[in-house]
């Protein structure tokens, strides 16, 4: 974009700056030549380790002699009992930026003050000495930025942005970045990388990207370990300009943690029977809402709706669907083998006062869950009977050995052969066995086979 001006040509031709002309030695051209040489030398320069036909492999499968294998091997001689795992890298970026007072140009020696933006960028790309100091006017700075963007090299773009950040006022920089999308993205990325959260938030605000800003702020909660501080932080998020949906979710997140802190505090010292019989193995803090509901159905079932820890309160506060509620409560109560509670979960009274069993989830799934919690046959049988789909019902009955249901089903299907087969699986003289026997002897039934 910036054409070389006559002065530039003069610069190249003057001997004064000879030290900084491109010496052909490490130019791209010579690199290409080098690559070509490499190519030509390959057949001659074939090596050593490729001779082995069969690879030697250590048990852990790392080929013996591979780099990752050797890192362990050569290091192991001096490793004295220290833990083997890779160190946890502390990703929280240091915030102590002040007083660094660096200038990028001072990183490098040389007085390269007369280079065009184009040349400067080229030098930066090649890791050679350069100076940004001479780009004083706003216009020059922007030319430099545009040139960096034009070569797409993120490394160079970032370096120029750092220079601009130091030498321009925030307002002007933001204004100019708004018209330069690529540079703007790199800038946001750079700020995030450096942990300059505040500035990012400010920038996003200036750009009108308020929702991004809100989410970015919210994300910070992941780095807060202490639960009370996390709760307070979430509270401070409530007023942020989230989308309508997200605002609800963030509100729920806050409410949930607030509740969990209260429940945790009281349950830690709880003395009720259930806590002794089934000691808690972990805290409920930061668990998802469905897990919290399960916990509540396990330890706080039957509490009145007024208490924070009661299932009904949680269900209502967090608008949990009937399906999810039933599934969760069923899991918890079946785990405790409270078949009575299980029963009442599905009981509904109609206007005549009769109770009838209804479920928002298929009864075949109810049966599976009950079986997994080793429910007795009588309980299982009742629910297998409630399965609507006849095929599912039969397969459920077969799977869980609900003999009566199996027998009645075959009887209704008038399937004599299946009854005979099934009889063989039963213990001789058991009541079921006898029942089949009776059916088979019944001359009134018109068998289909």
């Amino acid at each position: 974009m910036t054409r070389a001006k006559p002065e530039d040509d003069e610069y190249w031709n003057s001997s004064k700056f000879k030290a900084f002309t491109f010496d052909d030695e490490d130019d791209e051209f010579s690199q290409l030549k080098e690559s070509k040489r490499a190519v030509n030398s390959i057949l001659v320069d074939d090596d050593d380790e490729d001779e082995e036909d069969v690879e030697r492999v250590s048990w852990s499968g790392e080929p013996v002699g591979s780099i990752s294998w050797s890192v362990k091997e050569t290091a192991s001689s001096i490793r004295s009992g220290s833990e083997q795992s890779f160190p946890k890298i502390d990703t929280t970026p240091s915030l102590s930026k002040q007083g660094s007072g660096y200038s990028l140009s001072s990183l490098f020696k040389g007085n390269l003050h007369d280079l065009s933006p184009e040349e400067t960028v080229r030098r930066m790309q090649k890791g050679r000495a350069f100076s940004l100091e001479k780009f004083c006017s706003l216009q020059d700075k922007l030319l430099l930025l545009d040139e960096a963007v034009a070569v797409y090299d993120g490394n160079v773009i970032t370096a120029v942005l750092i220079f601009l950040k130091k030498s321009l006022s925030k307002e002007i920089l933001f204004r100019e970045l708004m018209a330069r999308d690529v540079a703007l993205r790199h800038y946001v990325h750079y700020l995030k990388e450096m942990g300059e959260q505040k500035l990012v938030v400010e920038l996003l605000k200036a750009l009108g990207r308020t929702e991004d800003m809100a989410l970015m702020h919210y994300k910070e909660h992941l780095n807060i370990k202490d639960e009370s501080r996390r709760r307070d932080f979430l509270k401070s998020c409530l007023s942020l300009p989230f989308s309508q949906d997200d605002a609800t979710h963030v509100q729920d997140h806050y409410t949930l943690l607030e509740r969990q802190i209260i429940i945790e505090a009281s349950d830690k010292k709880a003395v009720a029977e259930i806590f002794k019989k089934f000691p808690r193995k972990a805290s409920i803090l930061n668990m998802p809402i469905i897990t919290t509901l399960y916990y509540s159905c396990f330890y706080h079932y039957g509490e009145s709706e007024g208490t924070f820890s009661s299932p009904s309160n949680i269900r209502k506060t967090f608008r949990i669907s009937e399906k999810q509620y039933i599934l969760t409560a069923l899991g918890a109560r079946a785990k405790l083998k409270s078949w009575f509670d299980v029963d009442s979960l599905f009981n509904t009274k109609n206007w005549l006062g009769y109770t009838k069993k209804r479920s928002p989830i298929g009864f075949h799934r109810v049966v599976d869950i009950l079986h997994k919690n080793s429910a007795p046959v009588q309980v299982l049988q009742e629910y297998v009977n409630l399965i609507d789909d006849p095929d599912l019902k039969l397969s459920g009955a077969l799977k869980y050995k609900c003999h009566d249901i199996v027998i009645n089903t075959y009887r209704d299907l008038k399937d004599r052969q299946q009854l005979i087969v099934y009889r063989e699986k039963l213990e001789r003289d058991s009541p079921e066995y006898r029942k089949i026997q009776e059916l088979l002897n019944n001359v009134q039934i018109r068998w289909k086979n």
Partner: protein
Amino acid sequence: MASHLFCGRVNLNILREAARKDLREFLDKCSGSKAIVWDEYLTGPFGLIAQYSLLKEHEVEKMFTLKAGRIPSAAVKNIVFFVRPRLELMDIIAENVASEDKLQPRDVHILFVPRRSLLCEQRLKEKGVLNSFTNIDEYILDLIPYDGDLLSMESESSFRECYLENDQTSLYHAAKGLMNLQALYGTIPQIFGKGECARHVANMMLRMKREFAGSQTQILPVFDTLLLLDRNVDLLTPLATQLTYEGLIDEIFGITNGYVKLPPEKFAQKKQGEGGKELPTEPKKLQLNSAEELYAEIRDKNFNAVGAALSKKAKIISAAFEERHNAKTVGEIKQFVSQLPHMQAARSSLANHTSIAELIKDITTDSWLYFILCNMVRNAHLNMPDVFSQTALLSCVSASEDFFDSLTVEQEFMTGVDTDKVSTYIEDCIAQKDPLIKILRLVCMQSVCNNGLKQKVLDYYKKEILQTYGYKHILTLKNLEKVGLLKPQSTMRNNYPTIRKTLKLWMEDANEQNPNDISYVYSGYAPLSVRLTQVLARPGWRSIEEVLKMLPGPHFEERQQVPTGLHKKRQPGENRTTLVFFLGGVTYAEIAALRFLSNMEDSGTEYIIAATKLINGTSWIKSLMDSPEENLP
């Protein structure tokens, strides 16, 4: 150990050799004995280039993993850091350097891979250690030869960076890598592309070429065509479960830098006289590439055809061993013995793959349950009290059919069945607390196949996910929306059916045993990306202009001048060579499909594949997630 690189149409070993040469040169720059301190992430990619023996020849005596504190003592003249340009690593290096013994100074060097970073150097300066380095250099490792027809940048987060964070640094590296490739293999005369990133890479390449105009390579072009494809042109393919052998290995166990780690039980060698030996508990690690004859033969097959191939091989090998009974004369015995090593290698390779196939079969048929359970315990619910996780496990109903059910739902989505309502299967999976990534894969797939979900359906899924897996996943859901994997339906018509029909993405009668179409890799679904590649070769993109317009980003064609005298004179019947570059990652099933096209009798084109990274649905979705405390599979 690079024999796998020779076997393809293009000798990718040239690239490896060039990389090794650079490495040697750098090592020699730091004269004297040295210790390398590794950014652990890099050992995998470097393993594809060199082995320890090469380093040792250049006086590398010790190797350590980069970690905070002091570098373990070692009597060497030089300490060399091999690191990615990352700020957090700079902090560790600064700490290392600062705690070096002042009385016995050693030369310290730093090698940035793949590129120097001014930002990192600045950080080192801030920490007051920049002047301690004798050498600061970069090792350009853009495109790493992975197999005979496969190059990877091994750049894990490239999709996230390009499409979510709008950081195009990895595209710059891709362009640089392509320039380097052209320096070795000649100018590629034709460039095609589809997508924003593709356009961007092509622009960079053209600009870079202009910049060193005059330094034309005098190499006969090896590649006829370069096709640049954006991953976001085809968001669907990685979401589908790959059904090739290699694809399934990757889906289930994960292949990293060409290695897979497997549960050890099936690999315990039964050696006589060692009865009662305890089973190894460490995972079995195997290298997977085409150097292994058997693997090269079966990896791209649909898994349903692998069993037959293995048993056929078993017969051949046991017949070969039987030959010993026929060996009567000394000469015959001698010949038999000379073949033994090869036969034994073949036998152990067969044993390994039979074990792997068994493991996969267990999971895809009866023990899918076990797999889910292990995953759940290991990952998502690690912190849960026992009672919770058990219940979660217990509620995995009829899980033996789960793999099959999941595939059925995927296939329904891909054929456009019921994509506009809430799927009861997904709902059930959420209720069972299946791994979140599985849920996200399915929901995203439904969204992609419906060109966005109805607002009501989307809201429902979101609510269920947040309630079951935690509100913090708001962030992840937002990320998926930003990259277009999850979106509300716009007023625009759902154009997926048109795309599907025009490109024949669904083939009813996919033949898994003797495939006649690429759709065999997903048992019916033909990967969109590979269809685009296929159509480009014949009859050309002009025939699908309409569909190309429906897919995101521009499509384009560029030509690069080839120096006179270097124009390739194709023999009649000689195949063209096309390099397909996937920006944002490629799956093993897509690679299998491209290999299938290369091997087709009348295809006329052979493909070399390059990608920013080898991905699968799980690793891909994981890279877009936003909750660091969770180490999902």
